[in-house]
């Protein structure tokens, strides 16, 4: 059942990605001001969406871990944070690749860019904590707290273009209200890309989570073997 669901989700992700790519490179019209480089936006925004969803999930899993305990919540947080970091890194890279031809620089300390970079650094700290410390319940609790606190930056990143003076385009919701996409095909392409990335997120999370559960099962079997050997030795 689980394997079938993996394959089904993987297939749906692949098909939706191909459709999104067709729309981005063939179907959607080229934006008048920015030209062809604006098409980076159709995968840049979904990458940000997956990163934010992952970090939100890390916070939720952290709250449940602190509240109820249970390895399953810690595993869910670990799986989500890795995916979040991957997509947050891709947001920063694709943003820079868009900024160079449009702004004339790879990077600027703009409010949206800076708050996103701070988010990346905080979850980088979370991953370093998990990689360097032992796998104990104390470390898991500490990581859960870091995951919750770091997620508070997600709404700050989202509203940063409205709160502070910024050169980052406010495309989805402009300062005047409404959205900044001039053609309905641009909106449809963005929505299809968002759907494709949501499926990708679900698939990756399932893959990574099942791997972590397998690791937990491995630990249980190893303990059972040690116990059986101890019993055999005692007898």
């Amino acid at each position, binding site marked *: 059942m689980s394997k079938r669901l993996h394959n089904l989700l993987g297939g749906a992700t692949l098909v939706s990605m191909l459709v999104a*790519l067709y729309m981005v490179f063939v179907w959607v019209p080229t934006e008048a001001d920015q*030209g*062809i*480089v604006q*098409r*980076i936006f159709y*995968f*840049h925004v979904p*990458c940000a969406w997956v990163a934010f969803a992952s970090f939100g999930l890390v916070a939720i899993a952290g709250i449940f871990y602190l509240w109820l305990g249970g390895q399953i919540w810690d595993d869910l947080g670990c799986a989500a944070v890795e995916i979040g970091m*991957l997509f947050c*890194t*891709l947001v920063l*890279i*694709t943003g820079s*690749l*868009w900024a*160079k*031809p449009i702004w004339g620089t790879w990077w600027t300390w703009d409010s949206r860019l800076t708050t996103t970079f701070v988010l990346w650094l905080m979850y980088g700290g979370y991953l370093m904590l998990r990689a360097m410390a032992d796998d104990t319940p104390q470390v898991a609790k500490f990581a859960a707290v870091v995951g919750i606190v770091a997620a508070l930056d997600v709404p700050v990143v989202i509203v940063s273009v409205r709160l502070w003076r910024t050169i980052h385009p406010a495309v989805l919701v402009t300062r005047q209200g409404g959205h900044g996409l001039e053609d309905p095909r641009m909106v449809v392409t963005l929505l299809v890309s968002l759907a494709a990335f949501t499926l*990708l997120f679900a698939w*990756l999370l399932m*893959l*990574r989570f*099942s*791997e972590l559960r*397998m*690791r937990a*099962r*491995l630990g249980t*079997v*190893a303990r*059972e*073997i040690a116990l*059986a*050997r101890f*019993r*055999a030795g005692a*007898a």
Partner: protein
Amino acid sequence: MEHLGYLFAAYGIIFVAIFLYVAFIWQRQSRLEAELQALETRLKTISASQRREDTQDSRV
């Protein structure tokens, strides 16, 4: 078609990163699967021999 390189670099990096991550997970998963199977077989063998010994002890 100005700045086409930036566009392809962005999409190329996204797909290479996702592909590498998936390959990394698959590799770890298949290694864990093999390890788990080996351990479960060992556990079954130990449990079976333990049961045999227990039966012999009860007969004696």
